[in-house]
């Protein structure tokens, strides 16, 4: 698959003290919806801003839509919705869209047509002539999304696109994203809402403290972590666990934080049957049994917790552990 974003070793150091990015390698293929996850201060927005020339990287190699990162001309093919955008309140949504269309180099007739078209797509047509100052946060977010699509971009970068949007709005935005993918565009999402990402993303990357810790499809990331799970009514003692694991010989147990749960890395239901017998033999009452794949949230939490400072928000300071 042709790479739309292909960067290696991206570093950003602020004032020679704060290491926001510590050698990020990332590859986003054409036509996919890619999700970038990470705790606060992981460097997600910094990475996006580096790609969009809003921030200058300390070190960066790679390309954006085939051009060297930092090449301004390629930005005419990129649409961007920043996280905490603050569009001028004196403009109407139609004026805003036309303005940013012109800034992206869209011809007058096309931007007039496109603005109306996009306002309809994001459900804001009726508000086209109302000033942004009178909009709710969700409405501004919808207009912001439309703004990012004014130039028919090949790559759309959205930073927390569903922030402040109600459930109906979120669904609408998801539909827009899927539509963009169907049109062959690449969507790069930065979001904290893991369930949202899970629903639409083809591939994800998890960033922790300025480094991409994991990258791939959700299946790839959960490989070796999914399996048959047995859930008991009460916590399973360590002794029983060891007995059961010993009886399973060859099938690895998967680590889980839930004391009531026991997971084995197998997709074969037959292989998992002896677990039930062993547990019942040890007096454990089984509540649930079935195949289970970890959610994106679990993957995320695991990736963050595996990092020594994972739970601590903020970028890495120079000299701190990596």
């Amino acid at each position, binding site marked *: 698959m042709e790479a739309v974003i292909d960067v290696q070793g991206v570093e950003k150091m*602020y004032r020679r003290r704060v290491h926001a990015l510590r050698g990020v390698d990332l590859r986003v293929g054409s036509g996919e919806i890619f999700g970038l996850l990470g705790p606060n201060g992981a460097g997600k927005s910094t990475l996006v*801003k580096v790609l*969009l*020339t*809003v*921030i*200058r990287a300390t070190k960066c190699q790679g390309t954006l839509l085939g051009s060297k990162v930092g090449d*301004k*001309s*390629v*930005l*005419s093919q*990129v649409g*961007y919705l*920043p996280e*905490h*955008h*603050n*569009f*001028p309140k*004196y*403009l109407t949504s139609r*004026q805003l869209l036309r*303005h*940013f269309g*012109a*800034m*992206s*180099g869209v011809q007058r007739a096309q931007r007039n047509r496109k603005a109306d078209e996009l306002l309809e797509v994001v459900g804001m047509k009726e508000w086209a002539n109302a000033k942004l100052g009178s909009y709710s946060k969700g409405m501004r977010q919808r207009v912001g999304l439309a*703004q990012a699509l004014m130039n028919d971009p090949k790559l759309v970068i959205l930073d927390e696109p569903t922030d402040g949007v109600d459930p109906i709005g979120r669904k609408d935005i998801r539909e827009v994203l899927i539509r963009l993918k169907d049109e062959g565009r690449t969507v790069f999402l930065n979001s904290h809402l893991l369930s949202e990402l899970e629903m639409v993303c083809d591939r994800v990357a998890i960033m922790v403290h300025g480094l991409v810790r994991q990258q791939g499809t959700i299946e790839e990331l959960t490989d070796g972590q999914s399996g048959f799970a047995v859930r008991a009514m009460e916590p399973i003692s360590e002794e029983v666990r060891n007995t059961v694991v010993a009886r399973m010989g060859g099938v690895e147990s998967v680590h889980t934080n839930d004391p009531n749960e026991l997971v084995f890395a197998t997709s074969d239901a037959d292989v998992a049957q002896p677990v039930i017998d062993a547990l019942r033999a040890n007096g454990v009452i089984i509540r649930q049994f079935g195949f289970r794949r970890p959610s994106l949230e679990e993957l995320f939490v695991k990736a963050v917790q595996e990092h020594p400072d994972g739970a601590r928000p903020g970028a890495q300071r120079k000299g701190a552990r990596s």
Partner: protein
Amino acid sequence: MILMQTKALFIDAYRELNAKKLFWISIVLSALLVVLFASIGYDEDGVSFLWMNVSFLPFRPSIVSREFFYLEILFSGIGIRFWLTWVITILALVSTAGVIPDLIASGTIETTLSKPISRTRLFLTKYCTGLMFVALQVGAFSIGSFLAIGIRGGVWEPNLFLAIPIVLALFSFLFSVSATIGMITRAAMPALLITCLLWAVIFLMNIADASLLMFKVNSEILVEQREARIVEITENTTRLIRSERNREEPGSGDGYEPSMEEIETRNQFLPQIVEGLEDDREDLRQLTFWHNLIFTVKTVLPKTVETKDLLSKHLVDPSLYPERERNQVEEPEDPNTFVIDQAETEKRMQEEMRGRSLLWVLGTSFLFEGVLVLFCLWRFNRRDF
């Protein structure tokens, strides 16, 4: 694409102005001032307002020409010196102090920088849009005044439109300060306050310049008068000594050159005048030093007053300026007393002020602005947002 983006930024700036009440209040007040100009007549009887004669005002065509009255007194004096370069400039500074802080505000700059426009071009275009408030105000006011003065006063002077670049240049000097502070602090209030502070400093420097120049010119005149008096007394006393010698012994006084001591013994005032001359020369040296110092400081600052005065210089023919009558200075009885004619002082001051070149007035001011704009560009290009 460059043209399209520039146009988009200017349209956006206009919409922002359009949304500000202050802009429209200023336009309405400017329109009222133009209506006021159109209401003022000037004929043989003097000044009239609408249908009322206000002959108590000391203006008559025999003293002040029609052109001078309309162009210098009304347009340049009230319209430019007071209205545009004070009131409108202050309103414009208030309105535009947020231009650069708004540009680089978090939430705004990310979207703008993600567009295919270089930071240098983005900043320079935004900087120019910041001048639009004053450009529109002074443009509308000049057109209105041109028509009002032409129709009402019969004076059609196209040079009146020089007000547009002159006022714009003056405002741009101050706006460069506002933009720089806005770029550093990312806030409109410090930008406005520091710009006003610098403007006040420039104002004080101008007062210091004018005051010191006046003292210096007075001192020069005094030194000249003393020198002339010394020469006069020396010559008179020499003639007297020669005639006395010729009376005592005919022919012995011809070509006789008395010594200074001899002259001083014969004229009791001369030693005092010579002593006073040394003091006056010392005063002149001191005043010249301080005036040069102020002048040097002014050289690196924007020249707001001098820029403003450029309009009068080009708008009104110097021959139209009413002649100021010279005071009849009576010769004092005491030869050590000197009287300075203030008309002479003013004349010399005017000559020195008007002698300041365009390069000094505008060149150094634009250099000041250029340095600040370059600093802003450097900072804007290096900064992460």
